[in-house]
């Protein structure tokens, strides 16, 4: 039964391709073709669902061999990346569960998105996401997981920006994607280390061969993957992105941030259980981060007044608890928690819009009285502990400032030193330059021959005088005279500027970072 596994992610991928091409060629457009799009997406996920259930059944009956290889994707030297799948254990169970949840989300969206402008676009992205999630839980190597990890992130970006003419949606989508990219960088670094030290990228190999690694190496690999998991599952310090992601349409929120995608971080931790157990420090880190996130989600959730924010913050704290369980070594508990939470949260988010209709006229429940009376705690909770602002302050703004300074440097220093800046050709930019040009012109004037001799000797003397004058003018006066002062002044300004820049703490931090990088 193993060979069925490749078809599970393939069907939604085919659906996405069909819808994408149809949309691009203008074949699927408007309300008339909504049925076609919905049918393609629903049939694909139904087939995947059936296959996932068959695979699960075969696994429970013990008919699966554990892994299945489709073929080679990329080979270069010792780097050999296969397309292979896990066909037993937790991954298969999770695939079946996620597939059913995806089926529900897609079926729900068919009615929910009816007559929306981006109907076809929505189903294209959702099918792509379904394919990515199936690949994520079933892939047996790090690169395959990373590929789907990225595609899931990208489709999440596209769905947050679903209502792209709303500026908030567009900027939130960008912010979420870039925040996630930091985690992706951690994932890639983990892949690089695994290749360098273990010479294999299969999860099973990474887990078994990590026994031969030193503590430092095992910790480094575990740390990189833990960063990736923190970012994907919105753990501290990445938590704020989950609230920003609420911009997307409800069914997508349910799929991505309620039930399915946010759990992939926890899944990665459970998958990497052996290597994590060899890195006790990272286990402690995971537990601490999980605990902090759970507290954060609880504390901030207390003051939320809209249904989506409360649901997302509650998701955050549940995920935090799962990480805590992983960090403490309760892997079995964490996996049960994951499955149960996925089902409950999927239901809650999908029914949130109807809930709002039912309780429309009810008065808002007052806040928890203890926090309402503590003003600082109340403000901190409302401001979500200033996580976004802190990230802005220590990461986004310094990068922007550095970028601005570098752009200035590029235009005013590098371009001038290296070439001819176009606007400066044949033009003067300041009054002083104009003055200088005038004086130069006078000195070089050809009419200036009041002492001109005649004849051979006279001409000779004139030539010599001209040559000496040239020497004096070019080398002595210009070299040491007025230009020297000019250069000196400019140099002074430049050094002043550099010193001012260096005194900024951001640059000091940058230098330290560069030195650390080199010393790594």
């Amino acid at each position, binding site marked *: 039964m193993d060979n069925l596994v490749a078809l599970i992610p393939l069907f939604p991928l085919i659906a996405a391709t069909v819808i994408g091409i149809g949309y691009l060629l203008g074949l699927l457009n408007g309300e008339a073709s909504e049925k076609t799009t919905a049918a393609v997406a629903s049939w694909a996920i139904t087939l995947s669902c059936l296959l996932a259930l068959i695979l699960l059944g075969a696994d429970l009956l013990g008919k699966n061999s554990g892994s299945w290889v489709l073929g080679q994707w990329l080979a270069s030297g010792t780097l050999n990346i296969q397309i292979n799948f896990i066909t037993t254990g937790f991954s298969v169970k999770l695939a079946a569960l996620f597939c059913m949840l995806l089926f529900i989300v897609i079926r729900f969206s068919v009615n929910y998105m009816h007559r929306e402008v981006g109907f076809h676009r929505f189903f294209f992205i959702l099918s792509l996401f379904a394919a990515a999630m199936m690949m994520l839980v079933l892939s047996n190597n790090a690169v395959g997981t990373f590929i789907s990890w990225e595609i899931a992130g*990208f489709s999440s970006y596209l769905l947050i920006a679903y209502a792209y003419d709303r500026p908030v949606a567009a*900027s939130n989508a960008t912010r979420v994607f870039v925040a996630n*990219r930091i985690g992706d960088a951690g994932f890639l670094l983990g892949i*690089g280390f695994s290749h360098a030290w273990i010479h294999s990228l299969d999860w099973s190999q990474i887990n078994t061969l990590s026994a031969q690694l030193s503590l430092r190496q095992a910790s480094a690999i575990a740390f990189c993957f833990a960063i990736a998991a923190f970012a994907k599952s919105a753990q501290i310090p990445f938590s704020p992105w989950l609230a920003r992601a609420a911009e997307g349409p409800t069914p997508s929120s349910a799929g991505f941030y309620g039930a399915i995608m946010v759990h992939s971080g926890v899944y990665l931790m459970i998958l990497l259980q052996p290597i994590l157990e060899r890195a006790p420090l990272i286990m402690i880190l995971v537990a601490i981060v999980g605990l902090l996130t759970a507290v954060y989600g609880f504390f901030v959730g207390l003051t939320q007044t809209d249904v989506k924010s409360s649901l997302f913050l509650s998701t955050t704290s549940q995920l935090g608890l799962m990480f805590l369980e992983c960090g403490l070594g309760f892997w079995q508990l964490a996996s049960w928690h994951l499955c149960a939470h996925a089902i409950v949260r999927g239901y809650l988010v999908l029914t949130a819009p109807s809930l709002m209709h039912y309780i429309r006229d009810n008065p808002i429940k007052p806040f928890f009285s203890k926090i309402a009376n503590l003003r600082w705690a109340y403000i901190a909770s409302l401001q979500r502990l200033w996580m976004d602002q802190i990230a802005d302050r220590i990461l986004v703004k310094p990068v*922007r400032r*550095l970028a601005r300074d570098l*752009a200035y440097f590029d235009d005013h220093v590098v371009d001038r030193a290296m070439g*001819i800046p176009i606007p400066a050709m044949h033009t003067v930019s300041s009054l002083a330059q104009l003055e200088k040009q005038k004086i130069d012109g006078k000195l070089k004037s050809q009419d200036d021959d009041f002492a001109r001799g005649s004849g051979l000797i006279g001409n000779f003397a004139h030539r010599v005088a001209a040559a000496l004058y040239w020497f004096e003018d070019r080398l002595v006066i210009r070299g040491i005279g007025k230009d020297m002062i000019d250069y000196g002044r400019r140099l002074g300004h430049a050094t002043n500027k550099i010193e001012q820049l260096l005194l900024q703490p951001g640059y000091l931090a940058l230098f330290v970072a560069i030195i650390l*990088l080199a010393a*790594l």
Partner: protein
Amino acid sequence: MINEAFPLLSLTILLPLLGAIVIGVTRNVNFAKKIALLIAGLELIATLVVVWLFDAANGNNFQLVEQYAWIPSLNIEFLIGIDGISILFLPMSALLTLVAIIASWNSVQNLTRFHFALLLALEGGTMGVFIAMDLMLFFLFWELILPPIFFLIGLWGAGPQRRGAAMKYMLYMLFSGVLLLFAFVMLAVNHATQMGGSIPQSLSFSFPVLLNTAIPDNIQAIVFLLLIIGFAVKIPLVPFHTWLPTTAVEAPTQLTALLVGLKLGAFGILRFALPLTPNASVKYAWVLSIVGAITLIYAAMIALQQTNLRRLLAYASISHVGLVIIGIATLNIQGVQGAIFQLLNFSLIASCLMLIAGFIQHRIGSTEAVHLGGLARVMPRLTSFFFLFAAASIGMPGTSGFAAELLLIISAINTHPGLGVAALLGAILGAAYTLSFIRRAFFGPIVHAHLNQVQDLRSREFGLLCIPALLVLFWGFFPDLVLDINKMAAESWLNRLVH
């Protein structure tokens, strides 16, 4: 290995050059355009035949070699051939020229015949750069591509300062040419000295011969430095990069697409600079990788600050080539194969992004972010293609950009973790500047009312973007097709340097 049969490789150089001459003597503009299209199409077919004839299992040797005497007194030959490193650049540049010709089909209104003749001449010169095996012949083609570019920037440029930009480009390139010439002459003279012969008679400019000539270490260091700086100007690497943003804003976009798509400088480093000076390369590769890392981060930072799409794409292309240089300098197989792959990707990704910027420029008259906004609503097809290529340029899985970037990043981490972190930082910044420009230009409400009347991609433009888009996806799913072709060549390239 001399090919006695049909001189196919000479044909790939001569066909476009002849086409340029034919266009020059025709009177009818429409006829001239059709000839240009026909020649570019034939050229693409010819290069595909070359790929067909190429034997990848024997890719470490030069194939389809043609050898004729050219200047016998100095031992300069007309020696051309292809190996696994250069082979795929031929069809890619033919495809790119074809796409550029179709993209500028209606947008060039004055001196139309001259424009298309120059594009074909440029194609001929570029082919020569990729297949020349004699250093002097390489230098000839290297300089031969400058006049067409000079006139293309100066005559049909989009910006008001196109003349200045053309001059700037020319001065930079002549500077780089002088360094290359000097290095090549040093190598030839060294060959004569090593052979114990007299200077004009036993000079040699043949690349395969020079590969086997012993070079003293001090000469190697000088030649390495000259070649690296010479090629760095063309790539361009920081601090020699400022011509590219200027050119991107001032030049016609079909030409900029060719400039950012065909990274001749990086090809030069791969083909000539490192193999000709093996000891110096191994000794100083770390310098090259640091320059690459600086270029990567520096250009990405500046791109974050850009408001003009074409300038942004220029800096993005500088930043991406920084990663390629890191890959070359790591001197491991993943780095070299990734570098070749990524250079091929540029001819699809960077150039198509630039062409799309050209379509926007042609419709709206500007690529400044403040003049755009909300384009996704009025131009869904153009936006879809822009998204696909932008995703490929930030290394999104499923596109060819990912496979190449993965190889480069793994090779960087393998060499030095710090280098790997720099590469990953570049990837994060790449996502930031690309997506924040998309946010400003394509998302958000439509601010300028006249954008409501803007036309989406016409079927001609749609068709010409389809082929690169499909190729990007195809290579993304099956990267081994590309890697298999350059595998042997990359391995022997590496074996020459690190024994």
